[in-house]
């Protein structure tokens, strides 16, 4: 018998696939791992961003705004694999909007930072 979660697998299986009973294993489920990742990333965000000097706060605002366009990843999946019209159209609109956010955000930040650099 395993006295610990002895493998890097999780034994909870989608209900749809039949509800296999595997209670003998009780490692962390994916949701808890994702929560852990979330908390750690918030810590990193706080540590790094408190170091950014006021001069760079506007570029930070537009740059981090561009990063939030990462939703484009989800949008691509939705637009590309959706079956049925609705998911596809929603996905396509989402791709467009998120891409504006990403491309526009990074470009305008680059433009702004270029102004800072000129004098170095």
């Amino acid at each position, binding site marked *: 018998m395993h006295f610990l979660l002895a493998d890097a697998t999780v034994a909870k299986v989608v209900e749809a696939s039949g509800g296999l009973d595997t209670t003998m294993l009780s490692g962390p489920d994916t949701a808890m791992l994702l929560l852990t990742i979330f908390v750690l990333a918030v810590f990193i965000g706080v540590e790094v961003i408190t170091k950014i000097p006021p001069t760079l706060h506007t570029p930070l605002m537009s740059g981090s*705004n561009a990063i939030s366009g990462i939703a484009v990843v989800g949008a691509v999946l939705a637009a590309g694999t959706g079956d049925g019209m609705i998911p596809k159209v929603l996905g396509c609109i989402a791709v467009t909007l998120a891409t504006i956010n990403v491309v526009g955000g*990074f470009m305008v930040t680059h*433009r702004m930072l270029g102004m800072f650099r000129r004098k170095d």
Partner: protein
Amino acid sequence: MDPRLVQLAYLLSAVLFILGLKGLTRPRSAVRGNLLGACGLLVAVVVTLFGAGLDYRLIVGGLVVGSVIGAIFAIRVQMTEMPQLVALFNGFGGAASTLVAGANLAQTETFGRDMLVATALSGMIGAVTFSGSLIAWGKLKEFRRLDKIRIPAQQIVNGLLVLACLGLTVAMVNGDGSTWTVVAYWLISSLALVLGVTLVVSIGGADMPVVIALLNSYSGLAAAATGFVLSNTVLIISGSLVGASGLLLTRIMCVAMNRSLFNVLFGKMGSGGSTLNADDVYANVKSTSAEEVAMLLEVANRVVIVPGYGMAVAQAQHAVSDLRKQLVARQIEVDFAIHPVAGRMPGHMNVLLAEADVPYEALREMDDINPTMEQVDVTIVLGANDVVNPLARTDPDSPIAGMPIIDVDRSRTIIVVKRSLSPGFAGIPNPLFAAENSLMLFADGRQAIQDIIGALDAN
């Protein structure tokens, strides 16, 4: 593609985002930092494109259209319009999160509870971000109509909308039948759209930067929630980085204004301190001319320029940079004193002055320059008002009481460049204008500075 490779690529992308933000901690590495962030996004998108058998038609269409529009915005925008642009982009990001969660819901049959909670949150936060950001954008564009909208019993309406969203979420998570789930989802998102409007529409225009930073944080949280929906680590990590960044910027601004976030979002400004009558305060205001200012500058050893929102409005950054060069050529020491909330965005003045080629060393922070203000011969206050108002120090009843200010009143002579005696955002008179060592130069900011340069040249 091997799912593990996809995961590794997502991890790489998250690391690139972190390194990118770290790059932003120094002006020297900031450009590279921003490029690293962009690479991170590219990696994530490319890997996703090759990761599964996708139908590329719609995707490529969306990517191309989005890129073109984004690029046009980025190239066309004027630096003074950055707050508006960030608000707009922000709203798009939020909307994307809502749509993705909705699309996912539309074609999934069985859902775990965790997942439904994450889906509902994603829809809600994304929609608030979207409508709130659009309103903020409109306010900054100074659409008059928006300012006229008054929500009756605003706090109660907001409270009810939040409760309704949460109630629907509970019902959605516990309900059965996928139709009900989908209906509940779009109901929640629609209510959240309304909530975004009612939350933002009655906040004053000058507080929009705080609102935008907060909405920026929300758009990150919406992306993170979408990450939970899709079990996607890169969405979660980058979403929480953005969430933290927005919250910290919000806090920095609130601290610099000595107000609580609650007061910004729900408070009214200018209620206190109304005992001061502008006519009394301004009884002894002395006005001056560009020629007189030029004469004062010529004999000065040390000059400090304090820019404010008016410099942005007047687009006076290039003129003031020229003025600085002129004075430096005459061996006069010239610094800019930058208040953390001067203008309408954190770091707003820095961006404008950097655009106009003012070197980094000449931009000094408030805490750094304040102790030396007594040795300054001439201070030019250019379109700044609240950030130099000594009432913050002296009148505990004033709405800006306790806000740290730039101590221009301690310098030998003060030139205040603005168009009239009308107040700044806080709506209170400024005794500085009537101080014994103050001279008012009534004019548009850019024109005034150009006139001073002209007068200097003439001598």
